[in-house]
């Protein structure tokens, strides 16, 4: 009953002729968690608020289980929503906060008290019922907000950067906890975040937004491994982007000439393409000392100087400079027995990678 399908149909919102959300269509499957991801001002929050009913779309519709909700006021939509600053009612105790939605639904005091108790134990705050929000930590406050949103048995859960105000460690443990709870309840959830790690950790499906439009929709692996645009490739994780003309075709693939010293062997290139953009993830690149790499490999390989080397615990970051001035970023995982950086700044090295790591970006 709780698992609702949410469908956005050509949803748009304009403010004084500025388009905040531009013709967004999206289907969120029952029980899925979808993350709207993008930089600030990309329209993700406006989108979420239109789903909630807090903002009226300029055009387009929101459907829940194929029922048109566009004209249903927010207080009749039965949505549970979490806000970045928790939005707990400061003048009410934790119990009263959680009971608020039940009271609005005219549920009897006795039934409400029982449900509040259940909600409190669900969010592991059973002994905090009589406290006021100001007496709780940030993490506890967001749990209360979660209990308050879940106790009304909402048709969907909407999260507006819910963990943004928490510090890193707590945020990560809350991400895992929230995700586990959402799975257990099978509750359709839409989350807004600008934090790619949060989206990758929590969502079944990631919706990358830019300038009010959908940029790419897909699973975490799809988005990360096969970004459909330069924007996505750069926004999600780090990318080495190369661009160049097709030098020679071989079957479905081609050799792309990036610079005099670097050519890329790409396994699949659209027949019509003449100028191609390729993204290579920094962790796909192997760095070796000159002379160690197989001499036969000519494509996907370049000699470069170490420009910067940064030790970051479990990984090291190398910024390489190619003879023609191009930059290559390499992430190398550190082995446990290893002591620090393997290459020094100024050292000449060979960077190489396998051709499946070359991902052709369709839009650039």
């Amino acid at each position, binding site marked *: 009953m709780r698992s609702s399908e949410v469908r956005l149909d050509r949803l748009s919102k304009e403010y004084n002729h500025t388009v905040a959300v531009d013709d967004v269509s999206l289907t969120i499957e029952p029980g899925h968690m979808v993350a709207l991801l993008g930089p600030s001002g990309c329209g993700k929050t406006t989108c979420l608020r239109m789903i*909630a*009913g*807090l903002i009226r779309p300029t055009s387009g519709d929101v459907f829940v289980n194929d029922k048109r909700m566009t004209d249903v*006021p*927010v*207080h*009749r*939509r*039965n*949505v*549970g*929503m979490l*806000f970045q*600053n928790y*939005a*707990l*009612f*400061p*003048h009410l105790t934790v119990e009263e906060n959680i009971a*608020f*939605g039940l009271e*609005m*639904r005219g549920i009897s005091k006795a039934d409400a008290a029982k449900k509040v108790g259940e909600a409190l134990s669900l969010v592991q705050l059973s002994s905090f019922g009589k406290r006021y929000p100001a007496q709780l930590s940030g993490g506890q406050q967001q749990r209360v*907000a979660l209990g*308050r*949103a879940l106790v*009304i048995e909402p048709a969907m859960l*909407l999260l507006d950067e819910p963990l943004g105000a928490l510090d890193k460690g707590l945020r990560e443990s809350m991400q895992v906890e929230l995700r586990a709870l959402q799975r257990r309840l099978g509750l359709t959830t839409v989350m807004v975040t600008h934090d790619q790690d949060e989206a990758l950790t929590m969502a079944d499906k990631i919706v990358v937004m830019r300038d009010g439009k959908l940029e790419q929709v897909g699973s975490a692996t799809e988005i990360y491994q096969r970004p459909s645009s330069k924007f996505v490739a750069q926004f999600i994780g780090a990318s080495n982007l190369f661009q160049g003309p097709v030098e020679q075709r071989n079957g479905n693939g081609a050799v792309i000439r990036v610079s005099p010293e670097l050519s890329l062997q790409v396994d699949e290139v659209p027949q019509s393409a003449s100028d191609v953009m390729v993204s290579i993830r920094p962790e796909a690149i192997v760095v070796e000392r000159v002379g160690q790499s197989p001499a036969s490999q000519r494509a996907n390989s370049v000699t470069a100087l170490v420009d910067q080397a940064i030790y970051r615990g479990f990984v090291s970051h190398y910024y390489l400079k190619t003879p023609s001035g191009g930059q290559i970023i390499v992430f190398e995982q550190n082995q446990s027995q290893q002591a620090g950086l393997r290459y020094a700044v100024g050292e000449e090295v060979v960077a190489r990678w396998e051709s499946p790591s070359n991902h052709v970006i369709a839009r650039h």
Partner: protein
Amino acid sequence: MDERFSGFGAYILYTVTAGMMLFILAPLLLVMAASVSDSYFVTFPPQGFTLKWYAKVLQDRDFLEAMRLSILLALGTTAGSLLLGVPAAFALVRGKFFGLAAIKGFLLSPLIFPALVTGLALLQVLTKLGSQDARLNLLIGHVVVTSPYVIRTVVTSLQLVDENLEDAARTLGANRLTTFWRVTLPQIASGVAAGGLFAFMVSFDNYPVTMWLANSEYSPVPLVLMRQLVNVFDPSVPAMSTIIILMAMVGVLLLEKLVGLRRALAA
């Protein structure tokens, strides 16, 4: 003792503060002292001690009638200015509509316009409209004068209320009215109380607007006081004033007790 208020700086601060307090309170103390003077004219220092002027004032039918009128008028004004001012403040803070800034400026304008002019203008309008009842005219006039105080205090406290609280309440099933009543109002209670108290006190001692709108039958306290002052300047005038000062003090203490003055004025 707070670190910042120690040493020589603190000494200067306390001296200046005490000086300011004296400057503000001395005239009031003077009036209070004069009210117990056993003489037929207002003198200072007071001669002897008597409460007979209070006895006289409290038996004075004109004064008691004026008190009754002024209190009812101030209560009505408070209610009226809250009913107009709170929704107006809400619209000014939460609303997004054309001409918002202009309307805001206009609604707060009686704080800028001379009350004397406002009073005269009101008299002309109300006469044109054929409104003969002095009590109604006074109520309208006082609401016009006091609403900006309510709007100002409520606007300030509303600006501090997180809009997400209201959004949260609405997603939980509260309509706009319930949201305002159950979530917003408790957050701005101190601002509303302060605005209400201002409205009451401003109405109670308003002279410039009252002067235009009252008539011989319905004269609020400031007019009676003025008349008495012009006719016989005996210590019953300071006695009346002292009663008003005490009322104001009770009002301030009440506000302090209910919402905390510091919170109300911080708004």
